[in-house]
């Protein structure tokens, strides 16, 4: 396997323009001769489907949910970054690029990140044209706020529902193309395998979740926009159906998986309350703009927060990081919350929570101003916890949120399998080892609206694609394999539910491969996962049949893949003998408990190649060259 990033030559700021000019074009009349499969209808997949169809390609689009409008991008709250400099506070494409590279702890590809910053401005324009109701100032111009560790106000938002509004924009564009007959929409479908013909991605196998039919779809290129793998932790802020199965099936078919150990633990989530909890709810980190994070100074202080006087509170982020304070990036905020709780200073019944306090903000700005900014979030918090954040501080704790790792892609967003493109959270490309707030929406839409429409044309124009049909043997064989896997899973007839396996997997991953890792813990976790994998194959209990609406069968396939994927994450984490961004290994830290990078030995992307069942994956390295930024120790003090 050769990793060729295909980054164009030339100065950073001219690479994308030059590349656009160099890409081969397909004339409009010929575009309709190509079939493209897009899997996933979040920001990346929805935007890609709509835009490819607008250009004239025939698109087949697939989603798990009953409607493309429900993809998990919808849950993003805070906002979307762009380098518009509307706030006149010194922002620029170069600054957004620099912040993103630095925020990612210097583990992302410069050229990709620069392109992302360039495109960010087009995204805002496109969304406004589609009718996305961004927040506006009294004068009618777009409003901006500062968000998640940025020192400029570059975040555009639609109340606390920015992801929803951007997704509905992409969904409406997609709906228009469905009506025009350019996109054929397949809802309630799980992609279970990828079809390879003569070394190229040429289609997918899906399961119709309503009647259980196994279906094959041929294409000239396949686009995966299937999101992240956060649910490997069982409890995460991801939706229940979010899974790694589509990406993992591509990995099994030869697509390299890059940096799986880079996971983002979001600092502001509602804490865990019980065993049967099914998910963790994110409270937008915009709350950190006005909320102050604190714990009692003394460990074991169990008084209600109102009874703890000012002098006995430790505003640990403000004290430790005076220049960024409560706005330090997510990884730093999360790790410090864990540190405080590990010292016994945690709040609430479980001791696994810190306070996020709005008392001072309400005193300063008044309740109305705070309600206007965060009203819906406060309401959501009260619904879940029955506590009122206007009266008492919120309790928050970090939770798994976003996967920076993903399938390896080159500058064209193509994986190591020709014809297989990967967009959005499903790829690894832009966030390095840590993603900054309000950058996920930006990346998903950049990939979907403004990158894939061009780069896929370059591939199709320059590639010999033989005629194929779903009756060809490659399709039949893959579909048969999928059928037999399902049959096998249903025949285990064990005694333990799939959810129970998932919970155990989550515990192992959170304990040993979560916010703080060690070499010893990771090695232990690897053994535990292998054991769990064995038990799943003998003791899983999957009710019902394959030929019906069977939600437990869907789950079983996803959990089986998560278990295998968990092992890959651990292997990757073990191989990276440094700390960077979301990958914090306590064996590699500075005296002040900050991540200690090892740029000499680990300034690279780790890409893993599947080597077969039960075999260690093969390691490949893409070295990262930094020609435009100077590598520094990230400091937010």
């Amino acid at each position, binding site marked *: 396997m050769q990793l060729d990033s295909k980054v164009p030559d030339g100065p950073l700021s001219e690479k994308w323009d030059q590349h656009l000019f160099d890409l081969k074009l397909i004339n409009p009349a010929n575009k309709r001769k190509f079939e493209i499969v897009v899997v996933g209808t979040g920001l990346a997949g929805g935007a890609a489907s*709509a835009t490819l169809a607008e250009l004239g390609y025939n698109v087949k689009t697939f989603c798990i949910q009953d*409607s493309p409008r*429900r993809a998990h991008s919808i849950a993003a709250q805070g906002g979307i970054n762009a380098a518009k400099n509307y706030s006149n506070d010194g922002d620029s494409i170069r600054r957004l690029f620099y912040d993103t590279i630095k925020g990612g702890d210097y583990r992302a590809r410069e050229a990709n990140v620069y392109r992302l910053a360039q495109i960010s401005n087009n995204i805002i324009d496109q969304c406004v044209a589609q009718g996305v*109701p961004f927040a506006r100032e009294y004068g*009618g111009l777009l409003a901006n706020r500062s968000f998640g560790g940025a020192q400029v106000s570059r975040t555009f938002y639609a109340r606390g529902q920015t992801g929803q509004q951007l997704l509905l924009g992409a969904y409406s564009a997609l709906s228009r193309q469905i009506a025009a007959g350019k996109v054929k929409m397949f809802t309630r479908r799980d992609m279970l395998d990828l079809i390879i013909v003569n070394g190229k991605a040429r289609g997918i196998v899906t399961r119709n979740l309503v009647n259980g039919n196994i279906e094959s779809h041929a294409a000239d290129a396949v686009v995966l926009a299937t999101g992240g793998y956060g649910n490997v932790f069982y409890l995460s802020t991801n*939706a229940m*159906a979010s899974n790694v199965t589509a990406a993992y099936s591509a990995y099994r078919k030869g697509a390299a998986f890059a940096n799986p150990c880079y996971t983002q633990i979001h600092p502001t989530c509602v804490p865990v309350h*019980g065993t*049967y909890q099914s998910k963790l709810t994110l409270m937008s980190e915009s709350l950190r703009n006005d909320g102050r994070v604190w714990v009692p100074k003394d460990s074991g202080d169990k008084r209600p927060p109102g009874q703890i006087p000012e002098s006995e509170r430790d505003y640990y982020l403000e004290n430790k990081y005076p220049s960024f304070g409560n706005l330090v990036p997510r990884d730093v905020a999360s790790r410090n919350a864990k540190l405080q709780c590990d010292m016994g200073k945690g709040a609430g019944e479980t001791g696994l929570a810190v306070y996020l306090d709005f008392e001072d903000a309400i005193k300063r700005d008044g309740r109305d101003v705070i309600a206007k900014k965060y009203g819906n979030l406060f309401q959501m918090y009260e619904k879940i916890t029955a506590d009122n954040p206007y009266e008492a501080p919120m309790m928050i704790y970090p939770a798994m949120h976003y996967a920076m790792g993903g399938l390896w892609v080159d500058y064209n967003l193509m994986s190591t399998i020709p014809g297989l493109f990967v967009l959005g959270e499903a790829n690894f490309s832009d966030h390095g080892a840590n993603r900054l707030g309000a950058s996920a929406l930006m990346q998903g839409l950049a990939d979907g609206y403004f990158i894939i429409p061009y780069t896929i044309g370059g591939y199709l124009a320059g590639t010999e694609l033989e005629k194929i049909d779903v009756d060809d043997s490659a399709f039949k064989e893959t579909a048969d394999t999928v059928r037999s896997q399902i049959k096998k899973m249903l025949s285990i007839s064990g005694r333990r539910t799939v959810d129970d396996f998932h919970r155990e997997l989550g515990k192992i991953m959170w304990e040993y491969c979560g916010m703080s890792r060690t070499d010893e813990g990771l090695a232990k976790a690897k053994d535990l996962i292998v054991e769990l994998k064995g038990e799943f194959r003998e003791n899983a209990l999957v009710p019902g049949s394959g030929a019906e*609406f069977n939600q437990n069968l869907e789950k079983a396939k996803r959990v089986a893949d998560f278990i295998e994927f968990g092992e890959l994450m651990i292997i990757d984490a073990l191989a990276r003998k440094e700390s960077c961004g979301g990958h914090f290994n306590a064996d590699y830290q500075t005296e002040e408990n900050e991540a200690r990078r090892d740029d000499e030995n680990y300034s690279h992307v780790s890409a893993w190649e599947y080597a077969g069942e039960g075999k260690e994956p093969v390691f490949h390295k893409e070295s990262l060259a930094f020609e435009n930024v100077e590598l520094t120790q990230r400091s937010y003090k």
Partner: protein
Amino acid sequence: MSESKDKKAINLTLKVWRQIGPDVKGSLETYHAGDISTDMSFLEMLDVVNEGLIIEGKEPIAFDHDCREGICGMCGAMVNGRAHGPEKGTTLCQLHMRHFSDNDTIVIEPWKSRAFKIIKDLAVDRSALDLIIQAGGYISANAGGAPDGNAIPFPQESAEKAMDAAACIGCGACVASCPNASAMLFVGAKVSHFALLPQGRPEAVKRVLAMVKKMDECGFGNCTNETECEAECPKEISITNIARLNREYLKAGFL
């Protein structure tokens, strides 16, 4: 339905609509849900019941759900006759068991409407709502040609009103709670969202006519001002949007 925040665990009797497919007769079946923590969400309570059923070798209850934070619009059921249950402005996934009391009986049924066919148990087919959007719930703006985002300033108030309407999650509670199974709140919200923005005006006439036509074709009923939709909408979308829909529709008819 009283608050029982002080109570930590409750026992419930569930009467759940079971139906194995769209064309098969369904019925209410009774289940016991014991030792339910009041901190659980309604769907977590169903998860617990389902795990018990699976272990007993019985068929678990099928229900749609995804984000579990009240924004994707995937979940929904009639709980004691009310869409998404008794709490105002709440989706089923955000309804917590602390709003129920020990020994309550809870009746759980799917959305019922001619336009929403039952797939299985509580899961229904809401694709008719997608068809309405496909008929005209968009602004025709291909990627690539957009002017600067600040090129057309417009009043904050319009943007806020548009956002109020755009907050619809497409769950179908409005249809399920309406005696006429009308989708007017859903359509009104989308028509309003675009009608209130300058970018939406060029296609306003075509949009409202096409969406209303499709709504009728899909078998949704008409609005007779029952206002049940507004009362049950988990996003508290106002029926002002239906009035705006009617105005836009009338205006379009005169053009």
